[in-house]
């Protein structure tokens, strides 16, 4: 696949990355965004989609999901290109002064400016604290430890163990039970956070003998050379037993890890990117940092601060992308050229 060329590549499609699209768009700069999540919104949609936010200027109350929807709508006239489900993995400076960002899915994006809007880092699955778990993570399709199901078919005929009590755990119990040789669910209590209808479906499958459910937790993994053969389970009364499994699917939701950004060669201070407050540029020229990922004297990790940072960053980024052009300061209210870009006049 040929590398994509654009003005700006933004790492992170959280609220601040989304608003940056708008501010950059007003200055005619085109953006591509990369996010490991499968949708926009960052913390707002991952951690609190239904909770109300009360401190967005001019919007007295808005939920995390609604704010994301509105930011998407606001950015839409500038046709941002999203690369969801991809991790920004490496960053390389090219001889012509531009940057090449590569993702774990093989996408390559060449841009004049990199904007890191990565929040506290990327959302990755929680990994149970079991010794040696990482050795089973790359065992192959359908076997060993997996944190997501990409191709259901690869799990056919396997002895599958699922752990967790949320929607993902229950959804995969229901979907994989028909293909599995055996399917066992373990959870620490006889109650589930998952939607009631999924729980009912699971109980049905249990009654029909298609699913086994234990109130238990996984204490150890066993196998040879990365190939899982079984696990030790422990019940509430601490009795332990061996359980045969080819596949272990732990579903405990996501956690935030700084991730590959730490290896981009950008100067970091306690996992944050120090920036100057005139340009919001990192100590590496051409790489900007806005939103929760940056730090400066007086920094507040609030959405409204990130919006301000995006506006100032865009002005500075313009001069990097268009060194020979002059920037004209205009209001969206009164500028017909800005309104044309927004598709409103």
């Amino acid at each position, binding site marked *: 696949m040929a590398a994509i060329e654009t003005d700006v590549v933004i790492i992170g499609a959280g609220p601040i990355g989304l608003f940056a699209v708008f501010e950059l768009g007003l200055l005619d700069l085109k953006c591509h965004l990369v996010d490991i999540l499968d949708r926009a919104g960052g*913390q707002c949609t991952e*951690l*609190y989609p239904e*909770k109300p936010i009360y401190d967005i200027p001019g919007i007295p109350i808005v939920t995390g999901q609604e704010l994301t929807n509105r930011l998407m709508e606001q950015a839409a006239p500038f046709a941002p290109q999203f690369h969801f489900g991809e991790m920004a993995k490496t960053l390389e400076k090219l001889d012509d002064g531009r940057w090449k960002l590569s993702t774990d899915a093989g996408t390559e994006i060449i841009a004049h400016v990199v904007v890191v809007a990565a929040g*506290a880092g990327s959302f990755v699955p*929680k*990994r*149970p*604290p079991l010794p040696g778990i990482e050795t089973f993570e790359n065992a192959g399709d359908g076997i060993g430890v997996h944190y997501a199901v990409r191709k259901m078919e690869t799990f056919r005929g396997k002895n599958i163990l699922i752990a*967790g*009590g*949320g929607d993902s755990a229950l959804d995969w119990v229901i979907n994989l039970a028909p293909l599995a040789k055996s399917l066992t669910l373990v*959870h*620490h*209590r006889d*109650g*589930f*956070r998952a939607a009631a209808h999924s729980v009912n479906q699971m109980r049905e499958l249990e009654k029909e003998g298609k699913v086994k459910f234990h109130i238990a*937790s996984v204490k150890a993994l066993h196998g040879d050379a990365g190939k899982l053969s079984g696990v030790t389970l422990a019940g*509430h009364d601490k009795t332990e037993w061996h359980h045969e499994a080819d596949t272990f699917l732990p579903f*405990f*939701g996501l*956690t*935030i890890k700084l991730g590959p950004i730490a290896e981009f060669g950008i100067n970091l201070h306690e996992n944050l990117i120090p920036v100057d407050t005139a340009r919001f540029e990192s100590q590496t020229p051409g790489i900007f940092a806005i939103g929760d990922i940056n730090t400066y004297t007086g920094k507040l990790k609030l959405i409204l601060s990130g919006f301000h940072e995006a506006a100032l960053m865009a002005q500075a980024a313009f001069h990097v992308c268009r060194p020979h052009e002059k920037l004209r300061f205009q209001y969206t209210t009164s500028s017909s050229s800005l309104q044309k870009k927004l598709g409103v006049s």
Partner: protein
Amino acid sequence: MKIIAIDRQGKEHELEGRDGWTVMESLRDGGLDIAAECGGACACATCHVYVNDGWFEKLPAPSEGEIDMLDMALAVEPNSRLSCQIIVGPETDGIKVTIAPE
């Protein structure tokens, strides 16, 4: 109001809790390694602790929301709690918690 906290290396720390604040805030402000990613909104389960030495029974029962969110915590035990949901007060003086593994 004292909080005794055992970190993931097994080291014991004595922290000062503020009346009306949460145990999570004391752990975080005391520099202990606790992610508390959602900042206390009961939305991440990364502030998971075990409540030790009979203190579990002395605390007000966890809310429905906390019990549900504990489903997203790793290595849950019968004395598991989310530390952002434990409010510090005179009745918690001396409470002992262990930070759960991650």
